[in-house]
């Protein structure tokens, strides 16, 4: 039912007031749905109080830049750390622009320090209030070797092929590094 209403809304939308850019919905008194949902009641109420439109979206930006003294000292990324990160993440950002971009990103994230998180457990999964589903021990997948091998560019007799690994003294032969595209 909700989907149907949404479809009708998208068909006939027009902004009510050019300044605030808030979209209002067309009059719906003739299309009240059978069960009398709160949706139609809401639109009716909306139309009646058009002048005092109570939007939850603020009219002017309320965001204030965080003062420098509230933040911890800026983090400098040393060349050794850059090398290590390049090796661990296989990303190519060793130039000045790349390092600058990284330092600015860290500075932006530093703003989180202003928030008081005493006694708050860090959340590591949005599924934390769900039960972990445990599957029965039965065979349900597999036997799709051809399908998988088709995805690889280079295969040898049903094996995937990779360049020689770390056992060779050749570093960085596992995968190519992806270059970091920088938008300043």
């Amino acid at each position, binding site marked *: 039912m909700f989907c149907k209403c949404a479809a009708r809304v998208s068909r006939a939308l027009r902004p009510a007031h050019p300044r605030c850019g808030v979209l209002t919905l067309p009059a719906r008194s003739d299309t009240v749905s059978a069960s009398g949902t709160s949706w139609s009641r809401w639109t009716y109420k909306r139309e009646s109080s058009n002048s005092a439109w109570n939007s939850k979206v603020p009219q002017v930006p309320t965001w204030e830049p965080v003062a420098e003294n509230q933040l911890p000292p800026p983090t400098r990324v040393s060349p050794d750390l850059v090398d*290590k990160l390049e*090796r*661990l993440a*296989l990303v190519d950002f060793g130039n000045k622009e790349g390092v600058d971009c990284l330092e600015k990103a860290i500075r932006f994230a530093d703003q989180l320090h202003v928030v008081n998180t005493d006694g708050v457990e860090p959340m*590591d*999964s*949005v*599924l*934390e*209030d*769900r*039960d*972990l*589903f*445990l*599957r*029965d*021990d*039965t*065979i*349900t*997948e*597999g*036997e*799709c*070797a051809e399908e*998988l*091998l088709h*995805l690889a560019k280079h295969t*040898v*007799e*049903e*094996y*995937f*092929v*990779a*360049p*020689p*690994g*770390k*056992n*060779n003294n050749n570093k960085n032969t*596992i*995968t190519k590094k992806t270059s970091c595209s920088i938008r300043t």
Partner: protein
Amino acid sequence: MAASSSGYSRMFCKLRKYANKSQSLYHIDTFNFVIRTIWISGSKTQLQPKVHAKSLPQMVGVVGLEIHAQIQSTSKLFSGSHVRFLAPPNSLVSHFDASLPGTLPVLNRRCVEAAVLTGLALNCTINKKSLFDRKHYFYADMPAGYQITQQRVPIAVDGILVYSHFEGRKRNQVVTKSVKIKQIQLEQDSGKSLHDDERSQTLIDLNRAGVGLMELVMEPEMCCGEEAAAAVRELQLILQALGTCQANMAEGQLRVDANVSVHRPGEPLGVRTEVKNINSVRHLAKAIDYEIQRQMEVLQSGGTVLNETRAFDSKSGNTIPMRDKEGLQDYRFMPEPNLPPLFVYESEASVPGGVDPAQAVVIDRLSTQLPELPSVKRTRLVETHGILQEHSFTLVSEDGLMDYFESVVQMTKAEPRKVIGWVIKELMGNLNSQSLKVSQSPISPCALAELINLVESGQISSSTAKQVFQEMWKAPEKKVGQIVKEQDLWMINDKEELQKICQRVVDSHPEEVQIIRRGNKKVLNKLMGEVQRETKGRTDPVKVRAILEKMVS
């Protein structure tokens, strides 16, 4: 010794000069004696012969094991593909195992139960809530670029593994030790990579990728290869009894890495090296002992031990540096966002309302399913049958031997101690020489019981019985009685017959009789031997000895 003796002679010369001046040789002699004892005791300390008068405590090895046990389940840890050892390459791979985008992990209940059972068998505390993490590193056999493991909160912690090994010259003194288990965690296995050096490429087979593993981390409490080998053997027996892992090192179901370092007791632990590529329990002992020796030599010659990974070469028995770890590997652990926390419940009652009880993993239910562990079996054998502890080890270690032994004991009136002798010496001896398993033995428990009963009732002697055993081995279809009759091996119990034979022997050996009469009783054994030879071992040695003694005296 040469250095010390030349020093000694120098001192002695000086003393001599002094003595000649003072003309008191008596003092020189005692001083001489005192000096000699000090020098000799000094040269006995091998480590620091010249510098210190008092020797430093010996360096000891410190060994910690990291064991990966492949969980015996039908499907993999996070996907529904089959788990099998040999299969066409990449045929047991699902979309998740190949890390195709958009696939998600779904945890297998059997793997969780296996981990909890293993934890209970090793006296661990099971964490009611455990979390999954990602361990990132790049390698071709791990297509996702990370491995799902449990680093922060594993499923079981703080356990103990109790093991025993044999000491003493005859390897019959049992020494029981224990090692603490730091944690047991669930993690994914990686695929297999075959290195083709000629064409400079690596072939990847993902059949093994995603199979569930239990990683057991032990505290570094062991001191040598023998202890580590004994601990691993005991762990193999426990895992096989539980059915959670087949624990065959040769097939890769149990992989052991050893962390070895040396230090002097009381001092902080030394730098450790990790030894990998160990394919059997014997290789484990050799690798650890070699590594401890190598590290001691490095330190004694003034060098330092590097923190590196070394591979064990079974042909030479040495460890070889594998790859230099570029600094310490940073795995960038991160919580696995696709898996909520894993809850394991104490009892049926503590399962919350919204959870299906058939779905949930309940510890009480699993602890009732725990089978009899090897240590319990051994204690039971020793108490019920009164056999030696070392024999109980052999019985429990060999697959099926305990059942064989118990069925023989049931069918015969002989003492279990005698049965044990037959089972361990004769049966196992023959099985081992032909590399057979107990289930392949040509002699069934009934047949062996029959044979032992014949010995007990005095119808054949024990030496004949051994002959009969060998005959039965070669011709399993023949019954015991048949063989004895065919070769006419019945014991000669008729007193008159025995008297006649003994008289014959005594008459044909007059000199020996004289020697015995004069007092040398040992020669009686020679006469007994003659009797046995004549009768082809069909006589009871005790009776023969009595008769001979009477005749001779």
